[in-house]
């Protein structure tokens, strides 16, 4: 009987943990982010940001940016307005180009006018985030 109770407790704990994980739903954030791309920008990609309750320090994606093209990357978080999320852009040599924290202030979108074709890295990190959860949309215009 004691063994069964123990199994029950372990199973219940595992069930609760799984439920906890399911709380982050980046897809919902993407529904907010994609329409928020500035006018004139064509939607290109959407990126899910799930920090798994803080277990992941960063979430990274990459995309080939083309010379002569403007790219916009915006942020949406489950805490609202991209709160708790930071996006940092790196060039193909992994040199940091910019981050969405400017003089301690957070911005919820970055606009990059590319003059050098190559793979760029888009890294999402968390800053005072409570939910470690969000989404981001990448758009472009010529």
């Amino acid at each position, binding site marked *: 009987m004691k063994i069964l109770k123990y199994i029950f407790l372990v199973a219940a704990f595992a069930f609760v943990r799984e439920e906890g994980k399911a709380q982050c739903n980046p897809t919902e954030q993407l529904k907010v982010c994609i329409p928020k791309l500035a006018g004139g920008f064509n939607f290109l990609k959407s990126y899910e940001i799930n920090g798994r309750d803080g277990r992941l320090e960063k979430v990274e994606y990459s995309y080939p940016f083309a010379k002569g093209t403007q790219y916009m990357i915006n942020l949406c978080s489950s805490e609202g307005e991209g709160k708790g999320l930071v996006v940092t852009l790196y060039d193909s040599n992994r040199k940091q180009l*910019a981050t969405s924290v400017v003089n301690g202030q957070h911005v919820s979108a970055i606009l990059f006018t590319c*003059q050098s074709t190559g793979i760029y890295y888009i890294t999402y990190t968390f800053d005072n985030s409570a939910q470690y959860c969000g989404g981001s949309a990448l758009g472009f215009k010529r």
Partner: protein
Amino acid sequence: MQMKNYLPFLLLTAMLLVVSCGSSKKEDAEAFLDELDEGVDAPAISEETINDILQQIPAPLEISVLMRESGAEYDRTILSDPDKVSNYNTTFKRAINLGIYGTDLIYTNIFGKNQEGLSYMKSVKELADDLNIGQFFNLKLVGRLATNNDNLDSLMLITTQNFNAINKYLQDNKRANLSILFLVGGWMEAVHINCKMSIDNPEVTSLSERIGEQKDVLERIMLLMSFYAETDPNIKDLHEDMKKLQDAYNSIQITYTYAEPTTEVVDGVLVIKDNSTSTVHITQDNVKEIDSVINTIRNKLTS
């Protein structure tokens, strides 16, 4: 025994039922995916690495938008025939032609040829159904949007979202081999259309430059395909054919100059000015050679 003593057993039984139902669904999904697989073994490279490289293949939309902005005219004759779906009766051909039709669909969208786009949409839907990924396409919605050019942005948004969803689904379900074929087909069709337009409009250097810029993308595609070439004979054949394309790209040079970017915040948006530059050294002879190699490969894929 009192009722409260049964409670843990009841809960445990309920949880086991939930878990077992989940397992059943998982088994169904795995069985379905095994059907898609057609016996292709996973490569000895991590799924994460493959997904990382897959992200680095540009969306055909981006290449296609350049064509419209270059002033080049719409030319239906350079597209794949949308009525050849029934010819594509293997998973390999379906996946690669899904990519080809996808690019053709975007091309028609960009030029506002919505009725022609509907033919491609139907072909895309049919191939996607054959691959058991048709759930991502709502033909009725697309048809409604296609009847009015004012809906062009919505049409393109939905098309892009559908294709992104397919890629994600295939990758999440460990069938990156199909995702690769889908992306390669789409990429190759975009380069094919771009070559034709560049040949017709040699004075528009942005078109030839964009073709040249694909050199790095091709390298990544070749790397991806090499992972599967050992286990998938169709990918192996395509990989061999694409080595000729790599040869055609060998003489194209891309030079880079790095300079620190400058930034400023405008209306709450961080604006980054890229001060680095890249230059593509490509001639019209290079474009013609690439076009010729792509024609040969494409004819094989669409026969």
